[in-house]
């Protein structure tokens, strides 16, 4: 006999949103740190750094996120950490986000006119100060819209953590579906919850993009 889909079942799915949000937040925070490192390495004058960062980006953009999750998940047990969906999901998504954010932010750094950097170099600013006071603040402004856009992709990406057994929104949906066998209700609710998380961000990204386009059209 199946359980019926009722208030408690819906509540179980809705409360699982917190794990999706938490995983997204961890991956975004980790990805932001990694992304800055990758972006700076990509625009560095040191060739090995540049090529290393490029290889990192190519590998993560050229392979499926699902395989990245599997490799980290099973790789952790090889290095003796043991199998833990939490660490695996957070680590894999962090690496994934680092590659994508690194590439996005490289584009933003390069979008800052070269004359800015040259002028500050001529004024005697060292690399650190040039980046910190001249280039990065301008790149940061350009990067807001594509970064918010990527956040949507990242939130959707956390759904794959369900496949390695991490209980977030998608996995909660599967659990309730297996118990109630109400796939239409369950997956409609899950899809609606993802939509509620992602759509405002998409709209915000588009709004920022539009505002930026107006600001740069002269």
């Amino acid at each position, binding site marked *: 006999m199946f359980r019926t889909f009722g208030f408690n079942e819906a509540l179980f799915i809705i409360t699982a949103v917190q794990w999706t949000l938490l995983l997204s937040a961890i991956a975004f925070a980790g990805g932001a740190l990694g992304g800055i490192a990758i972006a700076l390495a990509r625009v560095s004058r040191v060739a090995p750094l540049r090529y290393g960062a490029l290889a990192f980006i190519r590998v993560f953009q050229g*392979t*499926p996120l699902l395989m990245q999750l599997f490799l980290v998940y099973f790789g952790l047990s*090889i290095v003796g950490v043991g199998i833990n969906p939490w660490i695996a999901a957070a680590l894999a998504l962090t690496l994934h986000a680092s590659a994508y954010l690194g590439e996005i932010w490289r584009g933003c750094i390069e979008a800052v006119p070269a004359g800015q950097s040259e002028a500050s170099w001529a004024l005697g600013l060292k690399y650190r100060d040039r980046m910190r006071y001249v280039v990065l603040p301008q790149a940061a402004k350009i990067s807001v819209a594509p970064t918010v856009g990527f956040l949507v992709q990242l939130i959707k990406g956390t759904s794959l953590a369900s496949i390695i057994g991490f209980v977030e929104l998608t996995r909660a949906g599967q659990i309730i*579906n297996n118990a109630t066998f109400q*796939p239409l209700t369950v*997956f409609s609710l899950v*899809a609606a919850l*993802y939509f509620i998380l*992602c759509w405002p961000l998409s709209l915000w990204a588009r709004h920022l993009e539009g505002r930026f386009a107006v600001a740069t059209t002269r």
Partner: protein
Amino acid sequence: MNYQFNFAPVINNFDQLIYGALVTIQLSFGAILIGMLIAVPCAAAKTAGPSALRWLVNVYIEVIRNTPFLIQIFFIYFSLPALGIRFDPNTAALVALSVNVGAYATEIVRAGIESVNRGQVEAGRALGLKSHQIFRYIILKPALRTIYPALTSQFIYLMLTSSVVSAISATDLAAAGNNIQSATFAAFEVYLVITLIYFILSLGFSGLFSALGRIAFRYPLAR
């Protein structure tokens, strides 16, 4: 670290991986073709259709772009049977991938249509060209050139996304990995090789597409 790597299961079952890779390629090409059949009318509706149709296309695009592909495929494979629509896993995979890429391709095609300079269309009309000639010589070629790079990177992304169809036990490359893994327990080695195959596929196809693009779009730039 005293782990003994064991690649024998991967080598012994390489025929399964080849078969899975072929299914992945078929799914990707099938989905991009059907996706384009969805995208072109949707883009036309979005640029020139009545407002009700435009609204409908927008709902389709926003829903697809703001929900995970995994949920879309679960919906198609597990939820639609409740409405009497039943697919086997590989067909469900093809349908889900097509519906997904159709939404992204709609925006790409629309951008291509909108990139064609209005003045050129008017100039064509002034020269006495018929509307199908205007479409063929003035709109189509530059629009194709504009959308080609975005479309090919969308294809690569689609191919990588298609690994998710293994979650409903479609028989693609990732699923071949799951099978070998559950039979031999050499999980890391199996997924390492599979990831490498995906990497080779995405590098190979993006190289092929950029070579084809250079040959196909050699005509001078429209200004």
